[in-house]
């Protein structure tokens, strides 16, 4: 249990520092890389919480797929070499105030709630987080949401294709 604590605090420090770097970095590509590292840290926190399947999916889909998409979009967009991109923040003080306010509100309502206390004492499942159990629950109780999710992903693919193609067809019409 002692080692768990040390590893958790190391991971938490890494996660918070890379998150700060991701939102404050001047270069947007660098900030995408920092986001990838933050997502990897989160995957390791999931491992620590006994969610191996979730950690693997986080690395594969989030840190792999999503970051690749973001970096590709940044590379495709032509403004990357523009030196004006250095100036990337505005209204830092109001944004800082608002986010600190949200942090304090979240902390206050969580810490003053008696329900959290009861949640944190009721750990019982011994073979928690085993991928087999998770898959069995996913494909029995949660089949309908899973199928709806696959429809959503299909809609997202089609929507992204339509959005990305629109300009090209307009250009062809203009040429004609």
């Amino acid at each position, binding site marked *: 249990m002692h080692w768990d604590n040390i590893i958790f605090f190391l991971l938490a420090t890494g996660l918070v520092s890379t998150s700060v770097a991701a939102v404050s970095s001047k270069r947007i590509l660098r900030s995408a890389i920092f986001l990838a590292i933050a997502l990897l840290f989160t995957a390791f926190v999931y491992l620590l919480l006994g969610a191996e399947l979730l950690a693997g999916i986080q690395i594969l889909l989030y840190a792999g797929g999503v970051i690749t998409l973001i970096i590709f979009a940044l590379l495709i967009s032509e403004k990357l070499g523009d030196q004006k991109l250095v100036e990337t923040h505005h209204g830092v003080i109001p944004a800082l105030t608002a986010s600190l306010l949200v942090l304090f509100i979240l902390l206050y309502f969580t*810490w003053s709630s008696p329900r959290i206390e009861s949640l944190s004492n009721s750990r019982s499942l011994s073979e*928690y987080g085993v991928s087999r159990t998770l898959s069995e629950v996913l494909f029995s109780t949660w089949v309908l949401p899973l199928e709806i999710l696959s429809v*959503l992903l299909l809609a997202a693919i089609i929507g*992204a294709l339509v*959005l990305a193609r629109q300009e090209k067809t307009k250009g062809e019409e203009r040429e004609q």
Partner: protein
Amino acid sequence: MSLYHILFLSFLVFSIGLFGVLSRRHVVGILIGIELMFNAANLAIVGIAWSMGVLTGQIIALFGIAITAAEVAVGLALFLLVERLTNTVYADKIDTMRG
């Protein structure tokens, strides 16, 4: 390591992401902030599920990750479209609908 530590970490990352969303000018920067907030919410859900000893939280987090992937795909397509149409990458320059 208790539920309180995990929730504190999650809230901290959520606020950092919110700061990014509110202060960034680049559209993809805003998207990165939203990703951080999603990630923090997933972390809180998994932490609470871990603390209660139930599997449902992990499944909800799985769905969250998949929905985020769809959201990012559409968001980046929108970013490329807007960048092509308005020739800017800054969210505060895209003010066509401002009255």
